[in-house]
């Protein structure tokens, strides 16, 4: 039984890896190309005025856009490039923890048959509400 369980497990693991590869690789290509276009800067520029709502400096927009379109790791890199207080880091982190790597992760949830729009709305909505609350509470404290 032991050997059989391992065999079945490895097989399921390979099957799952293959399924995820088919979903993730195309999106990964899109994401990599995106990094070399000015699209990210444009979007960040659009969102800059909105940052005061979350008690964040305008430069934070680029971190949020990178985190949402690319990945959490990319956002960390961008975060290090600008000077932020601990409170600002926590506000950005709370927002990003709800909503990040939307291209890759939404592709994965789509594979499960759940509507892309709903998943994105849930994630971005939670990020906005959480950012507002932590930002406001932080401003009072």
């Amino acid at each position, binding site marked *: *039984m*032991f050997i*059989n*369980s*391992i065999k*079945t*497990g*490895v097989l*399921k*693991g*390979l*099957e*799952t*890896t293959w*399924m*995820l*590869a088919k979903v*993730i*690789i195309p999106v*990964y*290509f899109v994401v*990599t*190309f995106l990094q*070399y276009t000015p699209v990210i800067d444009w979007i960040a520029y659009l969102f800059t005025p909105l940052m005061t709502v979350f008690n964040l400096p305008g430069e934070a927009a680029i971190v949020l856009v990178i985190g949402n379109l690319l990945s*959490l*790791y990319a956002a*960390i890199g961008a*975060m*290090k490039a600008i000077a932020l207080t*601990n409170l600002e*880091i*926590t506000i*950005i*982190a*709370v927002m*990003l*923890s*709800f909503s*990040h790597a939307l291209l890759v*992760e939404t592709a*994965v*949830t789509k*594979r*499960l*048959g*759940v*509507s892309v729009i*709903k*998943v994105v709305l*849930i*994630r971005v909505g*939670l990020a906005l*509400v*959480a950012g507002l609350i*932590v930002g406001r509470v932080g401003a009072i404290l």
Partner: protein
Amino acid sequence: MIEIIKEATLGSVGTITTIMKYVIPIMVVLQLFRDYKILDKIVKPFEFFSRIFNISKSSVTPLLVGIIFGLSFGAGVIIQTAKEGNLSKRDLFLMVAFLAACHAIIEDTLILVAVGANGFILLGSRLVAAFIMTYLLSKYVSIEDIEELEQAAAKEV
């Protein structure tokens, strides 16, 4: 241009290799637990998920895998569980809703704590928000939503 393609190819191969390194051990351990009948005992303390959201008990294992290891791994186990035929469309939607808000709580939290964020606020807000949102959705997920999902699934096939 060639540089970018190279970067994307190497990057995606790297990502898939990492996924494989996690997914195979996860699947082997789950299979062993299942075959030796210990999975039920491990999952038992977490059955409150299925009671709170009124979802099937077989949803609890994929939900736990997603919460701990991440969305992709959770999705993998969800698909395997669905193949065994124990998940309804409603289960699927509520699981994905919960995991959309709250997944990979170890990795995601640690990355952000490493740059100076408050881990308790992060983890707390994610768990609380996911529970409240999924609970509300579980009360209000209507027949139309389920039908919409079925249509989406039909398109996939």
